[in-house]
């Protein structure tokens, strides 16, 4: 979770190896994925075998993430055929219809032959989810899957994702800037600020006992129906320039708890309580 521009999507795209190179490039770190080890060491052909099969992705805007010139069914079939070349035409169709049923697409037998422009936004996102599930991946990355949808559809899609996650046993990496969505969906939460993770904790700990000043600020800024206040709480200041990040802690200039050391040394994630990691000098000192 994190605000726009904090690097959530870039991180997720990097995991899948979807950052276009050039201009993008990964300068450091590792992406460890089960028995496959560090994904950054894999060749492009090896990554192709993982994409769609072991890990899949559901994108933010279902309006633009389906190819307008192919039928919804074909685009899901393609994901299956790519990883299973020997499947027969009949099995393929019945599998896609089965997937469409599973994600509650209305009239699945007909919808497989529909082009994206004939489907609503919610239905398109269900097609994307069907595509993501098609090969039984271990990891599904859902990049703000409901941001572009109506509120009522949002709830349906989230409920569906949660149900499928339980049934299929896949891990879901959900990206969101919506604290309500996070509270309802997540087990563990990583909070990002200006390109790095500043806090990582089980969801209940995070909401009840936020430690990083940024997380505290975020949670404090949620307006509440049961309190009458004149002004909404804000985090003072603005995001640092991402092309010219300050030395030391990136949040220092907006932080009320900043220490002297914050200006020179960038804090690293440290486990402060079991399962609760924070990148903050002030939090570490208070322990």
């Amino acid at each position, binding site marked *: 979770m994190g605000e726009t521009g904090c690097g959530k999507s870039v991180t997720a*795209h990097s995991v*899948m190896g*979807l950052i276009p190179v050039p201009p993008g490039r990964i300068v450091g770190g590792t992406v460890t994925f089960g028995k496959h080890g560090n994904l950054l060491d894999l060749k*492009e*052909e090896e990554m*192709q*075998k*993982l*994409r*769609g*099969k072991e890990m*899949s*992705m559901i*994108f933010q*805007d279902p309006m*633009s*993430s*389906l*190819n*307008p*010139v*192919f*039928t919804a069914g074909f*685009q899901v079939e*393609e*994901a299956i055929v*790519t*990883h299973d070349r020997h499947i027969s035409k009949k099995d393929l169709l019945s599998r896609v219809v089965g997937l469409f049923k599973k994600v509650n697409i209305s009239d699945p037998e007909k919808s497989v032959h529909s*082009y994206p*422009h004939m489907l609503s936004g919610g239905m398109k996102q269900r097609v*994307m989810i069907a*595509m993501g599930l098609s090969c039984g991946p271990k990891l599904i990355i859902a990049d703000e899957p409901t941001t572009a949808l109506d509120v009522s559809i949002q709830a349906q899609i989230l409920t569906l994702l949660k149900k499928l996650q339980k049934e299929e046993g896949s891990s879901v990496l959900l990206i969101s800037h919506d604290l309500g969505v996070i509270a309802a969906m997540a087990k563990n939460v990583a909070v990002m600020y200006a390109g790095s993770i500043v806090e990582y904790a089980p969801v209940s700990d995070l909401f009840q006992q936020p430690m990083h000043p940024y997380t505290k600020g975020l949670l404090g800024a949620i307006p509440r129906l049961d309190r009458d206040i004149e002004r909404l709480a804000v985090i003072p200041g603005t995001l640092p320039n991402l092309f010219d990040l300050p030395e030391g802690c990136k949040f220092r200039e907006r932080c009320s708890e900043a220490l002297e050391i914050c200006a020179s040394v960038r804090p690293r994630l440290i486990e402060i309580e079991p399962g609760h990691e924070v990148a903050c000098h002030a939090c570490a000192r208070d322990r």
Partner: protein
Amino acid sequence: MLRFIFRRLLLLIPVLIGVSIVAFLILHLAPGDPAQMMGGIEASEADLIMLRQKFGLDRPLPVQYFMFLKGMFTGELLSLRYESPVMEVIWPRLKNTLALASVSIVIAVLIGVTAGVLSAVKRKTWMDYTATVFALLGISMPVFWWGLLLMLLFSVKLMWLPSGGMGTPLHYILPSIVLGTASAGIIARMTRSSMLDVLRQDYITTATAKGLSRRLVVGRHALRNAMIPTVTVVGLQFGQLLAGAVLTETVFSWPGVGRLLVTSILARDYPVVQTSLVLIAAFFVLVNLAVDVLYAVLDPRVRYHG
């Protein structure tokens, strides 16, 4: 769809009437007397009057226009120069031009689309720059000069290919390359820009995220979308090839309608010029109709209602 095609075919009628009126008026407004051209310099005034009467050139313009329309439909319209029915004069040559233009457009599409896709995929590499330079060269090179250069190399120096005329498939190579060069350049530029646009779309990331190879992502998901604007350009270019073949036909002595048109204009052979223009316009409209039909094939969002 069929109703749409039928309606577009009906629309051909007013277009062709318009073309025939414009062609007729422009020719008759231009100075020059066909009788004088036929009779030659020594023709006496009496000869000229006789010639004008014979071909109806002394009648009022509206009457001449309707005579021309009627003659075109009945096939009785005679060429002033050849004194045989115009269709017999035009059709064999129009066929040659159509053949040449078809081969040219195929070559132009093959080269143009390949170059365009490569320079989009390998954007800002030497491949992209090379393709761009050649596309711009192709667009800006004068046809007669480019034709002469190729002829000098392949016909005169290397003696691999015939320098003119038609008959064997070998005769097609040089003229169709020369005729198609500019179109190939324009198609390459168009393909490149629409491909670059398509490659930025979210559905391309989706296709990659499915595990498709780069080849499939580009060749299947991107190309089909990128072809939609390119097809328009190809249609327009084909019309240009039909109308613009005259220089190539002249350089390679290709017996086509372009050269016939020019010599007929010089000879003030009104019936041939007017009929050729109407026929070329008809083919132009038909090609554009084919482009519109192709749209619906490429893009399922396009549906025509009768």
